[in-house]
């Protein structure tokens, strides 16, 4: 049996286990364990498990994951989302569709200090939904904008998914964050444009709010200085190379914790609630990480990733066609799986293929960064596509009177914006790469 055949069987088994509602991490672990034992036996497997968990979890760069998640919890408890929303609205709330656009802007701001989409969607949803409804925004536009806006939590660095990608592909986290910055801002602008076009077609969907005076605007801006300061310290520190991403996450966590503390967000068990929130999100990610580790070792033993890469390279298919096939696979998987599981499952297989192909003459580091940014965008689309779209579920949980179908339809303009952005990133790699080249 070839490596590719073994790998395909393993995928079949994995999908079968997932369909039976086995936890994603456990399904990967079980498939990996089964395959490992078949290939080299119980002895090596039992020996491997002695140190696998410590080996997987004691990685310096990985420690940014729980740190960024704790930082997001502090930002949530510190009420930073409300200040961001008010500030954005003070400037553009009086435009048609302006409050929805302000919500997207606030999501982008929150994403700049939070590494997770879930937290961004939850916290901004709580703040913005009541306001959007009060101003008679169409339910689909309100929930759609927030579900899509939530993805900015991960598209704008810092981003937990990018950290995992960096570790899987041995790339520099700082460079990936740098590369994600412009595409992330483009995503926010694209979502705002989508709202603009939408309210031009359906003017009653997004009524204008009232215009604020410049004095009110300045006051609103004043309340978000902490967010800006934290963002500059964290991301500026990483970009400037003053400290490593882990150190930046530590500083950001302490700074955000201090803001939450001074605003009273850590009172009445606030710190404990932050730890519980972090524990849940971290536990979820790290169980999958352990499963993916065992599964990937098994796949390496089958030699499937290498064989597949050789086969694709030998087939003479145009590189861009291969890239689009990969995107389609990720999009289809994204309909039913979460982004992190997909990255952990597919990157070890697709990455060697991409690295073996020529795209616009990019060198290997640039190719890895460029592909990483696009893969991030494609898997994050899964958060808002039916049937399983985590962000849609979260926003719908907050707006219980809006049918799920209405929210999924409300997301369509934002999906169009996503498609345009990804095409731009494919054909103009320098959008992702110019900041990296500029800083290098």
């Amino acid at each position, binding site marked *: 049996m070839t490596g590719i055949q073994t790998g395909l069987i393993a995928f079949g088994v994995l999908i079968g286990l997932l369909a039976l509602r086995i936890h994603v*991490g456990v399904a990967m672990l079980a498939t990996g364990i089964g395959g490992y034992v078949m290939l080299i036996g119980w002895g090596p497997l039992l020996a491997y498990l002695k140190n696998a968990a410590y080996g997987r979890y004691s990685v310096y760069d990985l420690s940014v994951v729980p740190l960024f998640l704790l930082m997001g919890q502090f930002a949530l408890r510190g009420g930073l989302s409300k200040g961001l929303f008010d500030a954005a609205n003070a400037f553009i709330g009086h435009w048609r569709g302006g409050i929805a656009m302000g919500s997207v802007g606030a999501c982008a701001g929150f994403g700049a200090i939070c590494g997770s989409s879930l937290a961004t969607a939850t916290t901004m949803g709580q703040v913005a939904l009541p306001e959007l409804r009060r101003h008679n925004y169409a339910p689909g536009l309100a929930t759609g904008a927030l579900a899509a806006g939530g993805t900015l939590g991960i598209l704008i660095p810092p981003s937990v998914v990018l950290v995992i990608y960096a570790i899987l592909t041995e790339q520099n986290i700082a460079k990936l964050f740098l590369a994600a910055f412009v595409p992330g801002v483009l995503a926010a602008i694209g979502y705002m444009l989508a709202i603009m076009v939408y309210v031009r077609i359906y003017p009653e969907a997004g009524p204008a709010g009232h215009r604020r005076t410049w004095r009110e605007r300045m006051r609103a801006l004043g309340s978000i200085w902490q967010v800006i300061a934290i963002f500059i310290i964290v991301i500026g520190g990483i970009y400037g190379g003053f400290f490593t991403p882990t150190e930046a996450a530590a500083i950001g966590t302490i700074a955000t914790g201090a803001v939450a503390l001074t605003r009273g967000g850590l009172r009445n068990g606030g710190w404990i609630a932050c730890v519980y929130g972090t524990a849940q999100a971290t*536990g979820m990610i790290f169980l999958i990480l352990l499963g993916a580790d065992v599964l990937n070792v098994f796949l390496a033993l089958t030699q499937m990733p290498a064989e597949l890469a050789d086969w694709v390279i030998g087939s003479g298919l145009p590189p861009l066609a291969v890239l689009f096939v990969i995107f389609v696979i990720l999009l289809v998987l994204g309909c039913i799986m979460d982004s992190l599981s997909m990255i952990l499952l597919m990157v070890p297989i697709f990455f060697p293929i991409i690295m073996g192909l020529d795209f616009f003459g990019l060198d290997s580091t640039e190719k890895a960064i460029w592909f990483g940014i696009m893969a991030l965008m494609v898997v994050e689309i899964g958060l808002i596509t039916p049937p399983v779209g985590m962000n849609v579920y979260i926003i719908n949980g907050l707006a219980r009177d809006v049918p799920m179908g209405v929210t999924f339809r409300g997301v369509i303009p934002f999906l169009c914006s996503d498609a345009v952005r990804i095409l731009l990133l494919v054909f103009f790699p320098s959008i992702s790469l110019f900041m990296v080249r500029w800083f290098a």
Partner: protein
Amino acid sequence: MGEALAHEHVRPAGPLGRALDLACRGFALGGGLVLSAMALMSVASIVGRAAFGKPITGDFELVQMGCAISVTMFLPFCQMVRGHIIVDFFTARMPPRVLAILDTAASVLLAAVAFLVAWRLAIGLQELRGSGDSSMILRVPTWYAYVPMVPSFVLLGLAALYTAFVNALKVPA
């Protein structure tokens, strides 16, 4: 993905469930303390390096160990609040009874895997203790990190057995 948010979680009833819930929360808070200490230590090291040219010796090693300890201590709590991800797309239209059976089996499998890992980790701990394996700069024995990890995986297994039990109770209904 059947991913509940922590605040939606209803605390378990019955003495057994409450005791397990308490233990899981205790471990999560322990992990939170380690994580917070790690963040403070990193900040102290950066300040020391930037201001006085004296970083904390072995800060990288401490972060590695702290990361392993804190994330492992988070695992049981995540299961207690049903935070570990499942794909519920394929079974969306199944009757509740079938779902209860599947979820019982899934939790039992999670428990089995957790106990397997805990057992192997315990063996690994003994071996590392015997061999004197330690970190490069500070010479902190590696097995120290395994000490909280073994009970964390045991507790993850117990939490999974408990959720299996709760799911099994739903089967006859």
